[in-house]
C-alpha cells in the first residue's frame, strides 16, 4: 500500500520512493521541501498484522545498505553482525527498513540532488535537523503501510534519530534501542565536526560549495573530515597502539585504521556538501531543548520500551551521555534498560564483534518481540 503521491523506482540497484510535489516535506525551519525522494532498502517480510517492522537509522557516514553490499560502491553491508538471518535483528523474523537519511547522498534528496531548476541544490539546500530526517522516514514508513514500528534502532546520528522517533511518535514506536549516542551533541563532537567542515571548505575544489557544476570534488578536504571522526572513534588504547607503530616506522602520520582504499571509496560515494549538512544537523541536536530543557519531558507519557547501550571506551559518545538518556527515561517513568558494554574498541565498537553487546541486544529485542506477541518466524 503505497501513498498515492509516491511511487517506487529502482535504478542501479538503489531503490527509491519518490513523492511528488503534492506531498512535500515540512521542515523544522518552516520551509517545504518538494519533490522528495527517499532511497531505502528492506530485508525480510512484513507479517500480516504489519507488526514486525524494524527501522534502522544509519549513522553520519553510512547508508541504507545495512545488511547487503552497496551496489554503487561495492562496499559490504555495514552492520552484518546485527542485521541478517539469525542475527540479533533476525531478518527471518522481522521486516527491516533502512532509509538513506534526508540530506544524504545515496539516493535520498540532499544537496547533490537536482533542484527544480535542473541544477544541483548545493548550498541552496535548506538547513535540516534530526527532526526533519525523522519526519522524512515517517513519510516512508507510512507509505509502506506501517502504522506502528516494532523497533527503531540506531547508533551515533542514528541513535539521535531513534530518540527523536520515540519522543515525537511514541505511539508508533513499540521499542527503541539507542546505541552509543546522546540526546544532545557534545561540545567536543561539535568541535570535531567543525574541524571536518572547515577542512572541506578549505579544499580549493570545494568551489564555494558549487563543485558539482565544475565537475570536481573536494576529495582531500572530505578525507580529512572523515578522518577527524574516524580517529575520534578509536579508543585511547587503540590510538596509542597505532601511534607507537607510526613512531617505530619513523612516520609522521599514523594509520587511522581504515585502508586508504576504503577512504577513497568513501570520498567518491559521499557528497561533501552532504557531510556539511548532516554534521550540522547533528550539532544542532538537543532533544531537551524542545522540552524546556528537561529531557524527561521528551519521553513523558510514552509506552515505548527503551534500551540504551554504551561502550566503556567510547569518547565521542561516552557512557555518561547514555546514562543521561537513561536517567531521563527513568524520570519519565518509561520502561527502560541501560547497559554499559566493556570494550576497547571506542565508538565504532557497535560495528565490530562485541559478543556482550550482541547478547544484550538480542535479549532486549526478543523480550520486546514476546511482549508484542510476534511469532519466532515472522514474515508474510
Amino acid at each position, binding site marked *: 500500500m503505497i501513498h498515492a503521491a509516491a511511487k517506487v523506482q529502482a535504478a542501479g540497484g538503489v531503490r527509491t520512493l519518490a513523492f511528488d510535489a503534492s506531498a512535500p516535506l515540512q521542515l523544522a525551519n518552516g520551509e517545504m521541501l518538494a519533490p522528495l525522494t527517499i532511497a531505502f532498502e528492506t530485508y525480510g517480510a512484513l507479517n500480516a498484522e504489519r507488526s514486525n517492522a524494524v527501522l534502522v537509522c544509519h549513522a553520519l557516514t553510512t547508508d541504507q545498505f545495512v545488511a547487503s553490499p552497496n551496489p554503487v560502491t561495492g562496499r559490504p553491508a555495514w552492520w552484518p553482525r546485527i542485521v541478517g538471518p539469525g542475527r540479533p535483528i533476525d531478518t527471518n523474523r522481522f521486516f527491516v527498513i533502512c532509509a538513506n537519511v534526508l540530506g544524504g547522498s545515496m539516493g535520498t534528496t540532499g544537496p547533490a540532488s537536482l533542484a527544480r531548476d535542473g541544477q544541483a541544490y548545493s548550498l541552496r539546500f535548506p538547513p535540516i535537523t534530526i527532526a526533519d530526517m525523522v519526519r522524512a522516514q515517517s513519510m516512508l514508513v507510512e507509505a509502506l503501510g506501517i502504522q506502528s514500528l516494532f523497533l527503531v534502532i540506531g547508533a551515533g546520528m542514528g541513535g539521535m534519530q531513534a530518540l527523536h522517533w520515540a519522543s515525537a511518535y511514541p505511539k508508533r514506536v513499540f521499542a527503541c534501542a539507542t546505541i552509543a549516542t546522546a540526546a544532545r551533541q557534545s561540545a567536543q563532537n561539535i568541535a570535531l565536526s567543525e574541524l571536518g567542515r572547515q577542512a572541506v571548505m578549505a579544499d580549493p575544489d570545494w568551489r564555494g560549495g558549487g563543485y558539482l557544476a565544475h565537475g570536481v570534488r573536494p576529495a582531500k578536504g572530505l578525507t580529512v573530515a572523515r578522518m577527524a571522526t574516524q580517529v575520534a572513534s578509536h579508543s585511547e588504547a587503540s590510538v596509542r597502539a597505532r601511534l607507537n607503530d607510526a613512531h617505530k616506522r619513523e612516520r609522521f602520520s599514523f594509520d587511522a585504521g581504515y585502508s586508504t582504499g576504503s577512504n577513497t571509496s568513501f570520498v567518491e560515494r559521499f557528497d561533501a556538501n552532504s557531510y556539511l549538512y548532516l554534521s550540522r544537523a547533528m550539532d544542532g541536536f538537543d532533544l531537551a531543548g524542545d522540552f524546556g530543557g528537561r529531557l524527561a519531558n521528551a519521553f513523558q507519557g510514552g509506552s515505548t520500551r527503551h534500551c540504551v547501550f554504551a561502550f566503556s571506551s567510547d569518547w565521542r559518545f561516552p557512557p555518561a551521555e547514555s*546514562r543521561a538518556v*537513561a536517567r531521563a527515561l527513568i524520570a519519565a517513568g518509561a520502561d*527502560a534498560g*541501560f547497559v554499559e558494554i*566493556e570494550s576497547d574498541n571506542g565508538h565504532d565498537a557497535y560495528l565490530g564483534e562485541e559478543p556482550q553487546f550482541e547478547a*544484550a541486544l538480542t535479549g532486549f529485542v526478543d523480550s520486546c518481540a514476546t511482549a508484542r506477541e510476534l511469532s519466532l518466524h515472522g514474515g508474510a
Partner: protein
Amino acid sequence: MAAQLELVQGAPLDLEARPARGDHDVIARMVSDGAKVLDVGCGDGGLIQLLTRECKARARGLERDKAAVRGCVVRGLSVVQGDAESDLAEFPSGGFDFVVFSHTLTHLAQPRDALRQAGRIGERVIVSVRNAAYMRTRYRLALSGRTPATQTWADGELERRCSIRDFAELAREMRFNIETAIPLTNGRPGAPFAKTIWRANLFAEEAVFLLTP
C-alpha cells in the same frame, strides 16, 4: 514497638536444603498481581523474574554492577545500570506500587536517604534485612568471641550489621508504618516463638518488612 509479627507457619524443623533466597518467596507473596515494582539492587534479576512469573508484575531493576546488568538485559529484563544513592532521586514520585530492597539497603552508604526516596517513589516499600542479633550469632560471639562475619577483613564494601529491632526502629523513626514483618529462619518463613519483634530479634535469621510511607 507494639507491631505484631505474622507467624506464617511453624518453625522449620525439616533439614531440607535451604532455598537460596528465602526472602524472595516472601516478597512474591506481598506483591499484588500486576503491580509495578522497582527492585533496587536487583543483582542477577532473579527476583524480577520471580515477580514477573508469579505475580504478573511489571518489575524493573536498578543495579550497580555492570556485569550483572548485562546478564539481566540478556535475559530481557528492564534493568538500568546505576547507583541507588544518586539515581533513586530521578524516579518520579508514586511511579511504582512497590519499591524493594532485597538485602540491599544495608549495603548503601546512605540507607536513610535511599529509604526516604523509596517512600516517595513507591506506594509501599519492602525491605529484607539479615538479623545481626540472631541467637546463633549471639552464641558464637559470646562463646568464641568471634563475629560471624567471614568478611570482616574482606576487601571492598562491607554490609552494615543491623538487627530486626534496629531496622524496626529506623522505620519508626522515619515514620514508616510497618504493615507486616515476616521472620525467616533457614531461608523459610517462620521462626520459633517469633510473635513479637523482641522475640524475632533473637530467634529469626532474617526478616522481610512491608512498609507504608
